[in-house]
């Protein structure tokens, strides 16, 4: 996998570069930004994250389990306490809720990891330490023969540094 990496210091230049790259049909573009900016989301126009689905599914699973376990426990060894029904479901709502939050929350996080390919065990090409600092990066995956045009576009739009990576 090889491509061209451009480091920008100003956000607007980075945005313009992306727009032009898209015009030139450069497909696989990745933006590195120190902090989430809506401008890039608009520019990249990706579909919204799918995390929510996992949250929903596992949240429902959690609440079911959280209700079921106390009922099962009470029934498993039916001891009467305080003259209450052996399995009194009302207070079990609390357990249901807590377990829902626990499982739902953890599922959300793991889903986020999964979708954004984290943990990434090896630093792959096309990243520069500056991108966690003050710089915005644009990484274009392209074949060598079109690389030069990509580099031109990046330079033209005021990239501080442009380099080829393979």
């Amino acid at each position, binding site marked *: 996998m090889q491509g061209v990496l451009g480091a920008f210091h100003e956000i607007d230049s980075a945005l313009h570069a992306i727009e032009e790259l898209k015009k030139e049909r450069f497909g696989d573009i990745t933006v590195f930004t120190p902090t989430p900016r809506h401008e890039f989301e608009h520019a990249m126009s990706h579909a919204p994250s799918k995390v929510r689905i996992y949250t929903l599914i596992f949240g429902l699973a959690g609440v079911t389990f959280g209700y079921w376990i106390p009922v099962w426990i009470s029934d498993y*060894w039916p*001891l009467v306490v305080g003259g209450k029904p052996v399995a009194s479901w009302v207070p079990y709502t609390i357990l249901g809720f807590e377990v829902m939050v626990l499982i739902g929350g953890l599922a959300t996080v*793991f889903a986020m*990891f*999964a979708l954004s*390919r*984290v*943990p*990434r*065990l*090896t630093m792959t090409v096309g990243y520069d330490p500056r991108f966690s600092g003050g710089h915005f990066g644009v990484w274009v995956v392209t074949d060598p023969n079109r690389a030069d045009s990509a580099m031109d576009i990046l330079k033209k739009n005021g990239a501080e540094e442009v380099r080829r990576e393979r």
Partner: protein
Amino acid sequence: MTQRRKWTAIPGLVVLAAGAVILSAYSGASSSQHRSPVQPINFPHPVHVQKLGMNCLYCHFSANKSPDPGLPAVSTCIGCHNLVGPQRPATDLGPARTSAELQKLYKFADVAGMGAGMGPKAKPIPWVRIHKVPEYVHFPHMRHVNAGVTCQTCHGQIQNMDRVYQFSSLNMGWCVSCHVNGYSAKEGLEAAGYTAQQQATPAAAGAVAPADVQSGERKKARYDCANCHY
């Protein structure tokens, strides 16, 4: 791609850990099952029970009338063993035989030898206890014996043990599952080592009426805490 497979390993580990916990919880790890200590005198249950056909209640005399099964007094041993026993002078029944274990018994009982009574320096035999439930558990032997539960159900086939070992885990779960699911006379007799046809005969079944054996209905017992813990 490789990354994906790598990170899927992480939840895998979590699952493994959980499994380990559950396993350890259910294994008898927390009981002294199969413990088989060396006794001061290697008392051969098989000889007394199988060969001589002695009833458990001969020595464990209060098992059917007291929570405490009863432990034979030294005098009980001597009662027989200053007359009979493997240490036997040569007679027309056979050549002289002697037994090291019996010598130990005579030492404890301070018995001069065959035919002599117990001496003044007699000491009780410090048997090593094997089957023990904690002090906060009250186990009334007589209730179980009189309900027809065979000794072997809990103690295993002592009659075949050259050295007695703890047969059951004596875990609370072990007790309770029998109280809840009930005791079947048939299974009890099988545990005691009776064959199917033996079970039919009242004699073999001992306390158990063959009727129960046939019906196979299970005797259940209370399983609330205060039944044993107070």
